[in-house]
Structures are given as C-alpha cells and as structure tokens.
C-alpha cells in the first residue's frame, strides 16, 4: 500500500533564503508524485507533478522537486523564498489507478 511521510511538520525560513521540504514515499510499484500548496482558508493547488521522464520537475512560483527512486524521495525546493510562500505544503502519491494519498503536510513560515 502506498504511503507518504513528511518528516517536518513546520519549517521556518528567512525571506530570500533557500528552502527544502522533505517527502518520502513507500510503494511497491511505480508511482506518480505531486506537491500541492494550501494557502490559509483555501483549497489545495497543484505546485508540480512527476509522472515519468526527467527526474527534476519544475512547477509554479519558482518551486522544483527531484524524484529519487533509490531513496524513494521527492523533496521540494526553492532557491529564494518570499513572504507570499507562507502556506501549508502537501506531498501526495498515487499508484496509477489507486487513490491519491497525502502526507501530513509541512507548514512553511517565512520570516521577514
């Protein structure tokens, strides 16, 4: 069965500093991986997705993530964060015809 682990529940980062949000998954088959962002009092928005091909995927708002099959990871990165990046970030995994399973989320707080 698929599962997702986001080890960091909260990540504080100074404005303009780089950030990495960690995501590890568990699955016995090939997976599709996603990062979603949730701003306060809103629904989730897709940041980026990995389906196949290049392991480095670029998303919206300057975010990117790298799929690492050997480490079963899909960490999210941004080289320089902005105040507007303050939000909850969710990693999610699916095994094709299965449902989407979300991690527990990481709250990213940008410090001015």
């Amino acid at each position, binding site marked *: 069965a698929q599962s997702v682990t986001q080890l960091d529940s909260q990540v504080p980062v100074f404005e303009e500093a780089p950030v990495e949000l960690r995501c590890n998954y568990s699955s016995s088959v090939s997976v599709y991986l*996603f990062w979603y962002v*949730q701003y306060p009092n809103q*629904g*989730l*928005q*897709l940041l980026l*997705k990995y389906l196949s091909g290049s392991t480095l995927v670029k998303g919206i708002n300057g975010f990117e993530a790298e799929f690492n099959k050997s480490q079963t990871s899909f960490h999210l990165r941004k080289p320089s964060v902005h105040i507007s990046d303050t939000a909850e970030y*969710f990693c999610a995994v699916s095994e094709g*015809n299965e449902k989407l399973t979300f991690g527990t989320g990481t709250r990213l707080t940008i410090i001015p």
Partner: protein
Amino acid sequence: DTAVSQTPKYLVTQMGNDKSIKCEQNLGHDTMYWYKQDSKKFLKIMFSYNNKELIINETVPNRFSPKSPDKAHLNLHINSLELGDSAVYFCASSHGDTSNQPQHFGDGTRLSIL
C-alpha cells in the same frame, strides 16, 4: 468563473442534525472527490465518483451519503451529525479516473458541530 465551487463555506449546526454540502465544477472533468481535513490538517479521501458512478468509498460511516446527479455535481449529505464530524470538507475534480491527473480543489466547507 470559479472552477470548483462549494456551498456553504461555513456550516455551524448542532449534534444530531442532518446537513448537506453542495459541489459543482465547470472544468468539464468527469471525476469528482470528497476529502475530509481534520484539525491537524490531515487530508483523507472519503469518496470518488467517475461519470456519476461511485469508484472510491473509503471507510466512512454510512451517515455520509454522496450523490452525483450529473458529472458536474457531487453533493454530500450527512445524517445525525456528531462532534467528530467537525472538520473542513473539500470537493475536488479531475480528468479521467486514473490518479495521474492533477486534482482541482474547492475552497472547502468548514463544518462546526456544537
């Protein structure tokens, strides 16, 4: 021009009541979902419909009954509300019935049980 819209945005009611949440999408998607997000932000799927047919039904009390009158609508009816039902409920939609398609979410319905 909202893509996935839910009503109401807030719902405050007493234990034991019956309530409904409505969801509509204008994206032309054929799959719709209901998720529950608890106070710790944990997001869990409840139901999924593809072209009005139920395809995912997680372990959800049968007090929760989804209804899809057409593929653009997926409503959620909850009977005999309990304190533990307090949460934010999100509707979402996507193309097709395979989960390699990104899902588009509504802004949520915050349900508070008194």
